[in-house]
């Protein structure tokens, strides 16, 4: 059997430098009762695992670890499920190497 060790994204994000813009999230999820397939896809596709299901089965976003790649924008902005802006100048991920 090929059992894969689970990957902890939080450990990876820990290497990174961020300046979090508290109170100004640059990505917002539209309020919903049942998530669309696009929103559900973000649970897996986001490389920083910013999207999680809450206890009511809705998709929530926490942008503190966001790497600003734009994958969620490409998948879920056309359907109106999310709103995506750049963080304010100077905030967000600050790559040391890039």
């Amino acid at each position: 059997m090929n059992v894969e060790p689970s990957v902890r994204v939080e450990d990876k994000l820990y290497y990174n430098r961020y300046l979090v813009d508290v109170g100004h999230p640059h990505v917002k999820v539209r309020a919903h009762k049942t998530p669309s397939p696009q929103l559900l896809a973000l649970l897996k596709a986001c490389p920083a695992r910013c999207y999680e299901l809450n206890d009511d089965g809705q998709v929530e976003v926490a942008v503190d670890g966001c790497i600003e790649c734009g994958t969620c924008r490409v998948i879920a902005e056309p359907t109106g499920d999310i709103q995506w802006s750049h963080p304010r100048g100077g905030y967000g991920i600050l790559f040391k190497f890039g």
Partner: protein
Amino acid sequence: MIEERFDAIVVGAGMAGNAAALTMAKRGMKVLQLERGEYPGSKNVQGAILYADMMEKLVPEFREEAPLERHLIEQRFWMMDDRSHVGMHYRSEDFNEERPNRYTIIRAQFDKWFSSKVREAGAIVLCETTVTELARDGRGRIVGVRTDRRDGEIHADVVVLAEGVNGLLGTRAGLRARPTPDNVALAVKEMHFLPRETIEARFNLKGDEGVVIEAVGTISRGMTGMGFIYANKECISLGIGCLVADFQRTGQTPYGLLDHFKRHPSVAPLIAGSEVKEYSAHLIPEGGYKSIPQLYGEGWVVVGDAAQLNNAIHREGSNLAMTSGRIAAEAIGLVKSRGEPMSATNLSVYKKMLDDSFVIKDLRKYKDLPPLMHTQSENFFLTYPQLISKAMQNFVRVDGTPKAEKEQATLKSFVKARSWTGLFGDACRIARAWR
């Protein structure tokens, strides 16, 4: 200071934006460049390889000044299944030349230096400034930008959109479409630090020699994708990217794929004992020629990744970015020198010049390959790598089976997996798309 009017505003300080700003500033134009990162480079991610020919056209003496990592003397292509890789390696002493052709670089460091050249040339570079909107006049022409730093508009004769693959301004203003899941890839990357002697021993290098490994196969689990390993001086850039549409379809996680790649028996020994210092992710334009948007309009041009100018087959992007930035700037300079307005008609010279360059010529050559790779991904990225690995093992393993029988078995395995028509069709499709 900002109340004055500029000849040009450049949005973004990546390869394309820096090339454009530098070229215009060197011509004596009044240039304002806006960058949302803390410093130029702090939002930029690339493998990264720098192509000297295109860089020389911008800063001829860059080799003496720029933070370069290693000059590449060897290229390795790997086709991988879960336990093996079949490799094609090209290494040549010719690449140990006085003016090497390709270098590995670290973008955050390189871009900071590149930007210092832009400032030296006389452009004003404002960091920590996010452009929120393009400003239009009553006739719909682009006349400047709005930022999050101050109220009001900053005006210029022309706006150069060098805002990257995920640029919001052009798409929000309706100048081009948002990238779709099937024309961008998501790549994730880690920086693995090791002592320089360890890297040189593991990759068979001396001094500042460098090597690049690019890998396809079961590592992308049937998705259209590629892994890469670049040797820098004291670290290794290691990553993997796949089409966003494929991630969406399969539910594979990018970090799961990355860790799987790192554990592959051909990869793990290269990075054993390393210290990871950064985890990054970025989109890569993959749509090729057919996804290039309108490149110019009334008071604006778009350059680099924002214009999907990326050669996915040769994995070249930064050179297309800096060349398109330079050519756009030269076109703008030409219009300005004639004393004419930055209208769409006048700026169309940018497209003409770009069409005549390697940028569009190369992308046009491969215009049919991205769709082929994207629709046949299971065959090209899963089935064939497995078949080829088995064929190679069959070829090299000595076990008393007569060679004729071995060849028969290999042939049978290909026909069984893809059928004669499938094999013939794949060969024809690749040949036609490559031509």
